[in-house]
């Protein structure tokens, strides 16, 4: 039987104190995620147990025990401390999926600083937006990403330290300092900062419909729900080998790619390489992965390569599969049952929630296409968009709403309390998604309630893309909307009007695509650009994205009475 036992029994009289007790935490105690993910596991006698099994695309491998992780995270913490970094300051991790990313994350937390992991494929403009908003003090990165940092450093006077984990003998510029994790004098004992439940821990940037991405501020108490959801939803047990596909630049990669598995004292494997069905299956077989947390976009790519390929590998080690990032379509669930003899279990949550909210559980019936049921202790419902009151009519769709009472809910958006307050209506936290609930209490995703684009399981905000498009010399006006895609669910489509003297062409199309890809990220890159004469606007001049989006999805455009006709 899985860790969760019977879902219905767990829901009765649930209390997060159960998780607190298992972690040895009492309200008022100091609590530090970095310590709980390393020192505490060693104190339980598991210091010699493997924590991290790492491999890159060249086949290079590294392995770290929990004691290695404890000592190396101490070492990083001490190094940052000697640079003058203090509690509460933001330290960005801008790295590929190298061991320094995972271990550095814990080191930053042990110091009491705030970890700000960012996806290493971000372009300089995306990087600047997030570092500037967070007023980041230091960035830990690699030589291959240094050009992007150097491009923006002069606009970030408070960015005091640019720390290179692979500096080698090459020249360094002002504010740049080398740090070799393997060669630095190891620190056996480090007295971490006595962080408390409400001490800021991790700052994740997430996109919304309006404005630039927002810094979602997590606290150390988030550990309480991240630990227990890992144990009950992903069913991690002591002898499992776990693989989470997500990059720690995104919240899945920290909540369930570092905190969850290591707080549970479980070994995890990490592959620092791009997608390849064959290489992924070989990785699972080599490391005997038993629990696999993946994403719908990746699963659909695996489906494309077919079930016959799966049979060429011994994947009998697998015992539980889960998925995150976007709704897992029914076809993918059915396919995985046939390909792996078990279904991927869809899980629903977001950056702001910090942990899984609605899910399918081990031992519970999986309805293909359904998000599942609320995690024990989570009060979830759907509300109407006017009064924000629960909708009770079966089959009706409404806004997914959660009672804001779980440990890992973010405490604010950094420097944006107004934006944070707008997430709460009538005592509910609104996720920005729509769903319906069936007679058995299963939730069924219906779509986003706003203009945010969910591409490959990552949310991309249209404003950031449109602002970047306007920086291209040819673009006069821009709109970015979602376009349906069979693999990524949605991709970005841009509508642009051109300045006088510029004409639409294939060359310009490709130039703009690459312009956005390098400035922002591959995710934000429009996969299609439509050159138009005008964009639909309200009488006040605001671009009405929903009309463009509705056309892409073959949906009714709704009320157009306020739309200005050119």
């Amino acid at each position, binding site marked *: 039987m899985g860790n969760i036992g019977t879902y219905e029994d767990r829901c009765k009289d649930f209390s997060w104190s159960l998780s607190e007790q298992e972690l040895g935490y009492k309200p008022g105690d100091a609590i530090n995620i970095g310590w709980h993910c390393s020192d505490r596991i060693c104190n339980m006698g598991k210091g010699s147990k493997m924590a991290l099994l790492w491999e890159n*695309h*060249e086949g290079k491998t590294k392995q770290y025990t929990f004691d290695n992780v404890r000592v190396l995270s101490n070492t990083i913490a001490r190094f940052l401390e000697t640079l003058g970094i203090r509690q509460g300051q933001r330290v960005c991790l801008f790295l*590929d999926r190298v061991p320094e990313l995972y271990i550095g994350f814990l080191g930053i937390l042990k110091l009491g600083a705030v970890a700000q992991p960012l996806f290493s*494929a971000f372009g300089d403009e995306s990087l600047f937006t997030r570092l500037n908003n967070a007023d980041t003090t230091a960035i830990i990165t690699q*030589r*291959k*990403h*240094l*050009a*992007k940092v*150097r491009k923006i450093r002069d606009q970030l006077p408070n960015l005091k330290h640019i720390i290179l984990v692979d500096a080698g003998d090459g020249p360094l510029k002002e504010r740049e300092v080398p740090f070799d994790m393997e060669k630095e004098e190891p620190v056996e004992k480090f007295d971490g900062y006595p962080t408390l439940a409400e001490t800021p821990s991790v700052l994740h940037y997430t996109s919304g419909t309006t404005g630039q991405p927002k810094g979602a501020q997590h606290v150390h108490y988030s550990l309480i729900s991240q630990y227990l959801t890992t144990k009950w939803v992903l069913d991690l047990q002591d002898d499992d080998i776990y693989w989470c596909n997500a990059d720690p630049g995104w919240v899945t990669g920290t909540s369930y790619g570092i905190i969850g598995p290591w707080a549970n004292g479980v070994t995890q494997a990490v592959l*620092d*390489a*791009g*997608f*390849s069905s064959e*290489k992924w299956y070989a990785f699972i077989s080599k490391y005997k992965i038993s629990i696999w947390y993946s994403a719908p*976009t990746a699963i659909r*790519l695996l489906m*494309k*390569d077919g079930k016959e390929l799966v049979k060429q590998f011994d994947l009998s080690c697998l015992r539980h599969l889960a998925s995150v990032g976007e709704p897992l379509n029914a076809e993918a669930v059915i396919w995985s049952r046939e390909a792996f003899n078990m279904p991927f279990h869809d899980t629903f949550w977001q950056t702001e929630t910090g942990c899984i909210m609605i899910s399918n559980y081990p031992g519970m019936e999986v309805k293909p296409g359904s998000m599942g049921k609320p995690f024990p202790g989570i009060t979830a419902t759907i509300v109407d968009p006017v009064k924000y009151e629960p909708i009770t009519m079966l089959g009706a769709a409404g806004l997914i709403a959660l009672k804001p009472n779980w440990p890992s809910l973010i405490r604010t958006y950094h420097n944006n309390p107004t934006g944070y307050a707008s997430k709460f209506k009538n005592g509910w936290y609104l996720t920005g998604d729509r769903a319906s609930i069936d007679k058995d209490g299963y939730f069924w995703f219906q779509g986003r309630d706003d203009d945010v684009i969910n*591409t*490959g399981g990552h949310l991309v905000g249209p404003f950031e893309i449109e602002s970047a498009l306007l920086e291209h010399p040819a673009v006069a006006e821009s709109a970015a909307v979602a376009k349906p895609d069979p*693999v*990524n669910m949605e*991709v970005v489509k841009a509508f642009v009007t051109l300045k006088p003297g510029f004409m639409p062409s*294939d*060359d310009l*199309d*490709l130039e703009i*695509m*690459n312009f956005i*890809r*390098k400035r922002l990220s*591959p*995710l934000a*890159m429009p*996969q299609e650009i439509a050159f138009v004469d005008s964009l639909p606007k309200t009488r006040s001049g605001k671009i009405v994205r929903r009309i463009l989006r509705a056309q892409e999805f073959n949906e009714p455009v709704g009320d157009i009475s306020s739309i200005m006709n050119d």
Partner: protein
Amino acid sequence: MDELTKSVLEYVRREYIEEDDDRELTETTPLISGGIVDSFSMVSLKRFLEKKNGITIPDADASPEAFDTVKSIVALVHRFKK
């Protein structure tokens, strides 16, 4: 080295590899599985190949495997040039 291979190598180096990244890029360097070109960026690479060679590559043929090396990309282009 033929002109097509050379042009694809130059394009990949110019568009997908950072200035300070001095890694070697050859016809057989893994691009997708090596993390140099991700699945989203493949779209712009596909657009470049189509435009430069006056071809259309069906989406079904634009797989991560077909785009994983410059060598496999050139083979793909030749297939649709005929």
